[in-house]
């Protein structure tokens, strides 16, 4: 006995029950309300195709909405709730929609809710409340989801008789085999129809597969067939809502198979007749499953409606279980079913049913042109069989039409896949045409689409099956039309006056059954979404408890607050230390490339848009790089360390992109050059020391005269060899010290001691931003936003006049240097603080002529300043504009100035 609850009430189930079986065992007929009309619905199937019995299983962050009651096995303590009803399942106010159903035809929303956006906002609230399935949980999922890759020679999907036989044959032939079955036991159709192949055969076969080295995965669905015979499997290690034993709830397998054998079987079709959606109406094979597999007989008086032989097995099963077979309505003419021993009516097509909210009471049919009816509490329908061709189609397959079975069967495929068993050879059926009232004849139970809706879509001009699907919502949601598509296609073909295969099919897209978002995210969920790169000096920074800031994959200190300092206070203090004395910061994350070889300079002059060749040994310069279309995409510095050895730096955020770019140019465009370009970003840690006393600090550290601005020397600090680059981003005399990452802590500590001795400070990214904005230095991702040319950024004087660099031909296009482009400007507030990211407008209500890319304030004097991009900005210095950010309700009056607010002549760099 297993205890579970449904809608707050306690019940018991038998070991091995699905939730659907357990509910039927407890006499619960009403399980859910339909999507649109809130009609009472019960359990219609015994598999993943279930359209009606959708429930939310589990609690808190573990809750899983829209779970098919037929696709969850009951465990101790399972909590299930019905959906789409208010205030409760028995009394649902939404059912009023059912009364209004004549007013809710296909395309109702498209036709009704247009007009002003304001009105839509009002409608939307009610529509969202009334429509829909379960609610997503608001708490995080506490469980883990894993991904695993696997390889095999033969992947067999489906463990029915055909799949088991194929798997054992392949395994015993020495192939590596994986057999997957979405159910929790093997056998598939053999479970409901045990014949000569019984449970003993199933377990013996499974044992043979395992003995031959094969792997069998139950509760595992082949949910997607991708390229080159890659199949994704979704494996449930715990049931929905259940606490997983090892913390892992589900596993996503990526299986690359040599060959795929699909033994998917087929899905039984319902029939279209009035009120065919009541609790108590089930698919014939599903009913047989409940009786034979679970020992549940959900009724006493059974009517069967069929167009094939298979349903007679259901009659036998129910008879064996003690139910009364009231009538078998066989659409086929006599003598079909004549020798079955049951009361068979030939030429019989169901018309309608009567019943109450929970149950069925009677069934009526047109028998040989006459209307008849029977009292019954159970109706089994079998409208034929739809082969499961989803994976075959996802593999790029084609279909053949099988007239006898009125079904599509797999034909060819461009991948190495074969379909066997019932999906390849569906049972023959008799072609039926619905005769009942189309308005209550449901074909898509999940989306409440009736035959009348298909007719309406046709009448309104929706000819293609794809349009029909989108207009009526047929074939959407969790069941993806597994039951409904063929009925809709039949009706459409009838309207078009063509055969079904000519009416076309909608696309079969993965996943075959719903997949939880957590499974797709896998181990990449939560903080693991992107890997973290840690600074070599991380521990030293962390000891000071800085405010961290993400920068690309890195985290860098944003500021080092003292005591109760806020970010702004700390950053201002740090920036002032740099302006007045000295500060030091970690610049290790900058992209760094060591370029060496006889052709190193030639290679760099392809990568960089500036000249490099004339650089003397021991000297460096600012440089920038263009995309092939002529726009600036990164900047940095280039240093000649030796005759044929250069160090190139560029931005942190663009580091990976630059590494790829350099590799592409070297490997693809310039394979003939004698050059090596090595990414040394993480080989070197970098420490910047900046400020009026930086030179004196460095002199003490290295024991010699520091290099002049834009020069480089090798040196030794605290016994560790380093490279000193005299470069300034802050606007002060500054040095960057590069040291092998493993020795960085020694050098940092020595530098910090010296900086602190003279009363300096550590500074973070926020202070660095203040410093560089005041100085008018660019940042990639800010001013260099991918839309700016060297002309727009006033870098054109540095361009290599000989050309030959990447982007030279793109930059030659006239439009890249014409007037009317946005150009880099400085902005000075006249009143108010300039909001970052605001637009620049000449007057209120005017169109934007530019924007603010970075805002800060003068570090010593105070006052808001910013960098921005303004149309023809170079010639507009002195103009007054409004920097306006309507989304934040902030604005400031600004004067356009040159983009330098500090030491315009650059005197503070030099000795």
């Amino acid at each position, binding site marked *: 006995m297993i205890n579970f609850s449904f809608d707050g009430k306690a019940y018991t189930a038998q070991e091995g029950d699905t939730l659907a079986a357990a509910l039927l065992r407890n006499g619960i007929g009403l399980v859910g309300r339909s999507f649109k009309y809130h009609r009472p619905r019960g359990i219609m199937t015994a598999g993943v195709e279930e359209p009606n019995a959708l429930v939310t299983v589990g609690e808190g962050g573990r809750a899983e909405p829209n779970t098919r009651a037929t696709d969850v096995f009951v465990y101790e303590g399972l909590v299930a709730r019905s959906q789409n009803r208010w205030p409760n399942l028995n009394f649902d106010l939404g059912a009023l929609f059912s009364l209004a159903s004549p007013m809710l035809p296909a395309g109702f929303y498209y036709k009704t809710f247009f007009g002003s956006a304001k009105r839509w906002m009002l409608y939307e609230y009610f529509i969202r409340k009334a429509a829909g399935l379960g609610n997503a949980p608001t708490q995080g999922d506490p469980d883990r989801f894993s991904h695993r*890759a696997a390889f095999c020679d033969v992947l067999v999907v489906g463990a029915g008789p055909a799949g088991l036989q194929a798997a054992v044959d392949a395994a015993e032939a020495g192939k590596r085999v994986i057999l997957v079955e979405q159910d929790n036991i093997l056998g598939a159709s053999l479970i409901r129809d045990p014949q000569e192949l019984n449970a003993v055969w199933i377990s013996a076969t499974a044992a043979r597969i395992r003995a031959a080295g094969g792997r069998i995965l139950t509760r595992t669905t082949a949910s997607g067939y*991708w*390229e*080159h015979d*890659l199949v994704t499997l979704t494996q449930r290690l715990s049931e929905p809502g259940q606490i997983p034993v090892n913390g892992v709830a589900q596993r996503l397998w*990526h299986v*690359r198979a040599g060959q795929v054998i699909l033994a998917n079987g087929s899905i039984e079709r319902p029939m279209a007749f009035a009120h065919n959606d009541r609790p108590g109406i089930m698919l014939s094979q599903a009913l047989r499953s409940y009786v034979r597999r679970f020992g549940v007989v959900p009724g006493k008086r059974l009517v069967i409606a069929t167009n094939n032989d298979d349903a007679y097995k259901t009659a036998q099963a129910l008879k064996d279980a003690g139910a009364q077979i009231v009538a078998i309505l066989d659409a086929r003419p006599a003598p079909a079913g004549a020798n079955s021993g049951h009361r068979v009516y030939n030429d019989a097509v169901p018309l309608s049913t009567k019943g109450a909210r929970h149950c069925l009471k009677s069934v009526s049919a047109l028998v040989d042109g006459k209307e008849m009816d029977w009292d019954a509490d159970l109706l089994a329908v079998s409208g034929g069989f739809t082969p499961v061709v989803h994976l075959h189609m996802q593999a*790029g397959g084609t279909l053949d039409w099988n007239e006898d079975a009125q079904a599509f069967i797999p034909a060819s495929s*461009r991948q190495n896949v074969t379909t066997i068993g019932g999906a390849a050879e569906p049972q023959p059926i008799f072609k039926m045409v619905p005769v009942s009232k189309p308005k209550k004849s449901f074909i898509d139970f999940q989306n409440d689409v009736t035959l009348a809706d298909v007719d309406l879509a046709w009448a309104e001009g929706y000819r293609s099956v794809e349009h029909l699907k989108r207009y009526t919502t047929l074939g959407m949601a969790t069941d993806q039309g597994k039951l409904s598509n063929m009925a809709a296609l039949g009706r459409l073909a009838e309207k078009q006056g063509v055969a079904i295969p000519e009416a076309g099919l909608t696309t079969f897209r993965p996943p075959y059954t719903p997949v939880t978002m957590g499974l797709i995210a896998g181990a990449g969920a939560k903080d693991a979404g992107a890997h973290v790169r840690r600074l070599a000096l991380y521990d030293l920074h962390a000891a000071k408890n800085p405010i961290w800031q993400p920068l690309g994959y890195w985290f860098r200190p944003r500021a080092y607050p003292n005591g109760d300092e806020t970010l702004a206070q700390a950053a201002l203090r740090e920036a002032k230390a740099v302006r007045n004395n000295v500060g030091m910061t970690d610049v290790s994350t900058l992209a760094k490339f060591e370029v060496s070889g006889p052709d190193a300079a030639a290679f760099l002059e*392809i990568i960089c848009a500036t000249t490099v060749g004339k650089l003397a040994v021991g000297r460096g310069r600012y440089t920038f790089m263009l995309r*092939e*279309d002529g726009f600036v995409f990164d900047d940095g510095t280039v240093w000649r360390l030796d005759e044929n050895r250069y160090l190139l730096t560029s931005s942190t955020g663009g580091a990976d992109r630059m590494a*790829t770019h350099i*590799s*592409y140019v*070297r*490997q*693809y*465009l*310039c*394979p*003939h050059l004698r050059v090596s370009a090595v990414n040394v970003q993480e080989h070197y840690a970098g420490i910047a020391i900046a400020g009026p006393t930086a030179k004196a600090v460095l002199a003490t550290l290295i024991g010699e005269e520091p290099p002049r601005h834009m020069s480089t020397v090798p040196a030794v600090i605290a016994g560790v060899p380093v490279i000193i680059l005299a470069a300034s981003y802050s606007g002060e005399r500054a040095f960057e010290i590069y040291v092998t990452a493993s020795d960085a802590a020694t050098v940092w500590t020595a530098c910090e001691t010296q900086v602190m001795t003279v009363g300096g400070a550590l500074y973070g990214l926020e202070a660095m931003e203040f410093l560089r904005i005041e100085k008018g230095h660019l940042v990639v991702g800010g001013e260099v936003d991918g839309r700016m040319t060297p002309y727009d950024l006033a870098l054109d004087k540095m361009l290599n006049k000989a050309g*030959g660099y*990447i982007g030279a*031909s*793109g930059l*030659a*296009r006239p439009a890249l240097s014409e007037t009317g482009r946005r150009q880099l400007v400085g902005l000075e507030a006249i009143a108010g603080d300039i909001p970052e990211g605001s637009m620049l407008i000449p007057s209120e209500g005017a169109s934007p002529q530019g924007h603010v890319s970075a805002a800060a304030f003068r570090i010593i004097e105070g006052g808001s300043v910013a960098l921005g991009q303004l149309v023809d900005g170079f010639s507009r210095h002195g103009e007054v504009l409004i920097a306006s950010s309507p989304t934040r309700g902030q604005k400031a009056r600004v004067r356009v100035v040159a983009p330098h607010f500090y030491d315009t002549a650059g005197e503070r760099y030099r000795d």
Partner: protein
Amino acid sequence: MMQFTCPHCGPRAQSEFIYERTVDSVVPLDAPSQEAMAKLFTRSNPRGVDDEIWRHTYGCRAWMILTRHRVTNEISGCRAIGPEALP
């Protein structure tokens, strides 16, 4: 997800590779402006076989040219490029 046979590493999942561009859209270093822009912005997108540049970024990092059918994804060739592959 496709599977490519890296000339250096053998069969590997597509997720280890990064697509660069088709061979057709490579801009030669000395291309005049108009030709360069045609390479960048006017792509042929044939319904059939095309030569594409990929990089085994999360493997050996080598670049290669894959010949792929754009409809069926059939890979009919893969060859190494770069200094080592020069004749």
